């Protein structure tokens, strides 16, 4: 757990150049070590999602450097960013972002197929993930038929398909009922226990407390608190 997997140095992000006085992120420095589960807390507009987008390579910083697993993400071109997202990160979204016209298995297979993994190998990996996440019986079902919790499990399976060193989760329980949220909470905790590095953006302090061994809090784009939490044992993978 000593190797930093995320290094963020002096990162600022301003969406509107004329509004430089109110950046989404302002000179942020952050390091996340491999195996850590870090929860990013903060109110709306504090810069949480911006931070996640920068780490995911979905957006570029106005200033500063973002380095993930040894890759200078801020310097990558579009094609290299796509390759980076395939190989090094998995993403879980608040609203699952499953493709509704593909069945569960096809959704999970997508990252592997985009990365050019052999069909048999990809199917085996998908089957293994669906089995372990408890949604194998829904492999041929379409996402619209699943409950929110099940959809989020499928989304997690898809995120883990290419064995990414870093899992990014953006309000993963934000669209779920209480029971489903607890379900996902357990899942993330288990993944981290097995060594999966997780960067989690959430409003949900309970989720942060349950899943994260470290919590940071942003306010107006600045890091205002960075505290360690006691990790919870358990795992599923």
């Amino acid at each position: 757990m000593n190797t930093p997997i995320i290094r963020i140095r002096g990162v600022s992000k301003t969406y509107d150049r004329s509004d430089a006085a109110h950046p989404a992120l302002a000179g942020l420095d952050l390091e996340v070590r491999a195996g850590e589960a870090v929860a990013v807390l903060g109110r709306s507009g504090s810069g949480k999602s911006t931070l996640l987008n920068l780490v995911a390579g979905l957006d570029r910083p106005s200033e500063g450097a973002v380095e993930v697993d040894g890759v200078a993400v801020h310097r990558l071109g579009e094609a290299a960013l796509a390759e980076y997202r395939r190989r090094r990160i998995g993403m879980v979204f608040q609203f699952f972002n499953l493709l509704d016209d593909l069945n569960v298995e096809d959704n999970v297979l997508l990252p592997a197929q985009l990365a050019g993994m052999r069909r048999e190998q990809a199917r085996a990996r998908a089957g293994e993930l669906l089995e372990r996440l408890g949604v194998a019986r829904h492999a041929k079902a379409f996402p619209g038929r699943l409950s929110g919790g099940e959809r989020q499990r499928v989304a997690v399976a898809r995120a883990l398909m290419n064995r990414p060193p870093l899992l990014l989760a953006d309000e993963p329980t934000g669209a779920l009922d209480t029971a489903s949220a607890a379900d996902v909470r357990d899942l993330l905790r288990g993944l981290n226990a097995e060594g999966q590095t997780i960067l989690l953006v959430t409003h949900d302090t309970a989720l942060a407390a349950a899943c994260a061994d470290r919590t940071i809090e942003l306010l107006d784009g600045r890091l205002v608190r960075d505290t360690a939490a006691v990790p919870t044992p358990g795992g599923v993978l």
Partner: protein
Amino acid sequence: MSALGKVVRAGVGRKRVQTLVMVLTTMMSVTACILAAGLLVAAQGPYQRSFADQHGAHLNVLYDPAKASPAQLAAAGHASGVTASAGPYPAVTVQPRSGEDTRIPPPGSPLPPMTLVGRAQDGPMDGLRITFGRWVRGPGEVVILDGHSPLAVGDSMQFPGLPGQPTLKVVGLAASVSWSADGWVAPEQVAGLTAPGTTPAAQYLYRFARAGTDTEVEADRSALAAAVPPGALTKATSYRPAQEEADRTASTFVPFVTAFGLLGLAMSVLIIGVVVSGAVTAATRRIGILKSLGFTPAQVARAYLGQALIPAGIGTALGVLGGNLLSVPVLGLAHKALRGGLLGIPFWVDLAVPAAALAAVAGTALVPALRAGRLRTVEALAVGRTAPGAKRAAARVGQGGQAGQGGQAGQGGRGGRGGRGRAGVAGLLAGLQNGIGRLPVPRALSLGLATPLNRPGRSATTAAAVVLGTAGVTLCVGLTLSLGLLQDGLEAGRAGKVVVEAPMEGPGQPADQVDEAAVARAIDARPGTRAWYSSVPTPVTLAGNTGRSEAVAFTGDVSWSGYQLVSGRWFSGPGEVVVGSTYLRTNRAKVGDTVTLTDHGRTTPARITGEVLTTGDFVFMDRAALAPLGGAVAAEAISFHIDLTPGTDANAYANALDGVVRPMGLSAEPGAQHINIVVLAMNTLAGTLTLLLSVVAGLGVLNTVLLDTRERVHDLGVLKALGMSPRQTVGMVLTSVCGSGLAAGLIGVPIGILVHHQVMPAMARAAGIGVPETDLGVFDPAVVGPLILGGLVLALLGAALPATWAARTRTVTALRTE
């Protein structure tokens, strides 16, 4: 501005690309329709209109002033049936050569005999319209009849046989609806063009009360001849050949312009339908918001009707402008081909076409607009958050779908109302999509291939438009190839890289004493000769012939001449003839019939073995067939057509042979290439219409892909977040049109071929000829293959821009899109 007005304006302004596509689509469609409709209208009796506009003459008459006094000639204007007359104008018939300033034909080349008339441009009859250049300003200049001379403005003609060897510079081309002369000069010029010992003729132009048929015109001519001393009327030319040619040419345009017009109309309706309904559908969530704010269903419907009509109105206005601008060069060629009668787009076409286009847009927009107005607010708000594929997925779920949370979660219940039928179709589409997903191609491509299944109706409509576009391209290519072959066949009478015949002018040995055997030996002996044949008119007639057939006899190897047979075979010796369509039609004869050849009381039977492609009324036979009839020919009109071995210089060959045949009373000249203005006009028009149709089809694809991409931009964001690269994104979007493009090619090309096989014979029938099978069978694999791929190319070109946009779409932005 009212709330409704603001909504409409904002809707038009916000979807700029979609608005632009609609403007361009309607513009191209209206432009094509204006052109097609303009030509169709012009093709209805073009000659009659020009005749009326230019005060045409029914008869152009040349009198010999030595045989009739001016008073007698003037009195002929009161002959029976004459309603108007003009003249006298001094006229001379000359045989010029091309002057030093002339490029084609080379300087010094003999030109066809011409009748030059000294008169002013305007007159009480046969007003001359300058088509290029200007009218003559004095001696030394000539204006020639447009389309009847190889010379162009700037060229010159010389008269080496006349005193002073005068030269005339061509300063203009003029259209004469009556073909009253081959050229016009200043009246004071005529004396200098008159050969010593002769006097210029006096030209009079006449109109008659009855001149609708050849018989009536002939009766009118007889009345004039009777009104002047015997022999005074030396030449009378009727307006009828010009009228018949113009009407025949005009009617050949009708079938293919109609075909293109119908293709264009159907395609425009489809594309406008896709564009307009897509625009309304894409804005469903906005409709929900408007209704939630208190807009009534009628207001919503009016708003979306307005949003469709504003860009369509702009496009229509631009289309009218474009159509009229394009009509200048495009219809200008057709005008020449029709010998006038095409004076621009009629005003009512400029009103009727845009009115029809706007009505089509309004009609197309009304259905989705009314549907939008009736949409329940809560549904409209939810629909806007849903990708189309999700609806189908929800339909597959059926009524048992579990409602979840969030934007995507509400789909199951809505789709569940679709009923068993919808679920069945959805299941079928899902099966197809799964099948495509299993194809052994990269996933980005299989995702693209399955994209049309998300909006099968829209995709099918767009594919249908590409089908029509491909059919249009196929028809255009087929017409161009067939017309080229047909032109070659019709020009076969002028075959030969070198032609030996009696010179048009100058002293020489009397042609009727030409030693044909000596000429043949000279041709055979000349290095570079590959093959040759001779043709000569004969006085032979066919017993019972109700037409005016001209019998032509051939000697030598005619196989390379290019004569094409509509049916049957070429004659193989005496006792056999081939005839043109005119003979068969006039005499109700058919291939296989036996006819009787007659010459000065001698007869011999001959069987019709084939129908030859020709616009003239010809009967072709072997020279040996004349033996039983005495063998008489019009030797002064004999011509030898020579084909050369590859690499032989035609000019050098002709010069060398000319030295040998000149003492025999003949001359050798390089054969001339002729440009058929009618074929050129048809090809230009077909090409222009095809280009417009292709652009409209491409815009349709662009619009569809754009709508698909925008509707699924959130999914695109997800895919990019999962690692889809820009190249994969472009591949996915382009692949989404490959299936429909290829299918369009596979369906559109046969349709185009089918239309071609209907249009070409119809055009030929209008021209009074048949079409040889070889001229129809132009679609060999080398042509069909690229045409089939043409549908794909058309679709890919249309999808290229949206594909680039999709690749450039920022992932974060796409993910945030609802």
